[in-house]
């Protein structure tokens, strides 16, 4: 379902769009771009490639946005350069970060391996990357100070990887929405509904090559999605999601909020990803959570190390829950299960995931 032509056009543009947005930002700001770049790089000595990233490179910057820069290098001298976390230039906060080129390449190789596995088996592991996902996404989408971007070629893989992850989030929040409705918590259901919609939007945006880590921009990016360029399944998914979003935002009564569950069901992940994938979700124990019968029922013990112990009776009903079984929960059990999920004692596991 990846909109390969859209992504290919973006890669072929060689970063022209990001450079244009960056220049537009400086024009609106009224600051001298060359002077800014001289100021920022004055402390660095050695081989480096700086990128404007985040809202500046994306054309999302407001009148008060920070200017975020990532400096890519493998030069040990550059990596040792001390950076202040409180830089200001012409009354704007400047965020600068140095990351390793070799680590970027390792991340991209790892993502490529996981995607091969996903394509072949329909499963992928939630493997940790050497760099934070936010930094990887930013540098792929960034605008260089000079020259062509080095990692834009990775956009197809980053887009598909993000789409797989966002779809997983959609399934998880949809699951929580259904439990919240069963628990009689319609306000929470609406929150989960909005979060699920945001994840659905991120899935379609990623399919079109628009990838961003920070979800606070998702609705704004959705509004800017060029619908006229979409066709087939992507266009249909965009239309369905937009309609659902409007209805969720307008949900002011308890009935409407409880109805969010059905809205999300109509969006089923097959709309977002019409490929033959398993699509269930079920609950599993959270990380570092142990179950031990030597604990009074409904007592939850949390150690300083973060390990948590639960009585098996409190888990029995919750752990039996898969997507299709939520209606069999009693409202009280649904409330307990939801609280355990919210506190991290249980987690929603997408059945595509291999838990390693």
């Amino acid at each position, binding site marked *: 379902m990846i909109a390969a032509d859209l992504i290919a056009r973006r890669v072929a543009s060689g970063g022209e769009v990001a450079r244009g947005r960056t220049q537009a930002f400086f024009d609106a700001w009224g600051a001298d771009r060359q002077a800014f770049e001289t100021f920022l790089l004055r402390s660095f000595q050695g081989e480096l490639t700086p990128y404007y990233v985040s809202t500046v490179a994306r054309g999302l910057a*407001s009148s008060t946005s920070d200017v975020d820069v990532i400096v890519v290098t493998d030069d040990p001298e550059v990596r040792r350069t001390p950076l202040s976390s409180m830089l200001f230039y012409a009354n704007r906060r400047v965020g600068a970060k140095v990351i390793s080129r070799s680590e970027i390449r390792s991340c991209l190789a790892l993502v490529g391996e996981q995607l091969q596995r996903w394509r072949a088996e329909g499963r992928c592991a939630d493997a940790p990357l050497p760099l934070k996902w936010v930094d990887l996404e930013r540098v792929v989408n960034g605008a260089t100070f000079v020259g062509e971007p080095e990692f834009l070629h990775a956009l197809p893989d980053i887009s598909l990887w993000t789409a797989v992850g966002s779809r997983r989030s959609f399934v998880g929040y949809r699951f929580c929405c259904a439990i919240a409705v069963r628990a009689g918590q319609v306000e929470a259901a609406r*929150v989960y509904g909005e979060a699920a919609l945001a994840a659905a939007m991120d899935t379609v945006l990623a399919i079109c090559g628009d990838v961003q880590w920070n*979800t606070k921009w998702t609705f704004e990016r*959705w509004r800017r999605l060029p619908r006229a360029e979409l066709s087939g399944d992507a266009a249909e998914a965009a239309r369905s999601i937009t309609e659902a979003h409007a209805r969720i935002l307008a949900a002011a009564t308890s009935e409407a909020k409880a109805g969010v569950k059905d809205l999300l069901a109509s969006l089923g992940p097959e709309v977002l990803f019409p490929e033959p994938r398993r699509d269930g979700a079920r609950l599993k124990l959270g990380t570092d959570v142990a179950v031990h019968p030597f604990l009074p029922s409904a007592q939850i013990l949390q150690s300083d190390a973060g390990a948590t112990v639960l009585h098996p009776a409190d888990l029995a009903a919750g752990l039996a829950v898969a997507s299709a079984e939520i209606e069999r929960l009693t409202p009280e059990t649904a409330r307990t299960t939801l609280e355990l999920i*919210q506190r991290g004692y249980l987690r929603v596991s997408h059945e595509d995931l291999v838990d390693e």
Partner: protein
Amino acid sequence: MNDPVTPAERSVAAGAGPVFARSMLELVEGYWAAFVHLQNCLEDVAGSDGRLDYLQALRLKVLAEVEAVDSALAGSAAAADQVHAAARAVEQGLPTLQVSAGVLCERLLLQAAPGTAGDLEAALIEVGELVLGQLAGELPAAQGRSGQREIIRALRLWSSAAEVRGHDLGFLGARLQDL
């Protein structure tokens, strides 16, 4: 050791009941959540330039951040992620800060059809300031020009108070690195 906070270490914000934290560590955690994360979020709100879609996304984040402040002051474990934190806030309110779920939902325009960007921006700032206003003393403006100085001053004050009470606030060093 979780000793009760002494009268000298707490004060009452005008119009609200006292916020009782069980220990110095919980107070510090709550203040950190407030002046770093909640204030950062409110800064995003103030810089929205009237973008309604952006503000709608920030509404969930404001809910999550006020819940985080409340949970920290109560010594409760943080929610598994921001969405879960926001979901808890709209159902349970902020019990430590004595803000009911009903008040939160009403103030954040969750009981009515979507308003204008101006309405939502004002609502988010109001709720944020409602929470910040209940925290006694001066909150460092972490994101401003003098933010670094203010944070360091706050850390020194907290360290002095912690030393008197025998607490170890070494974890704050890592927090400063994250800023």
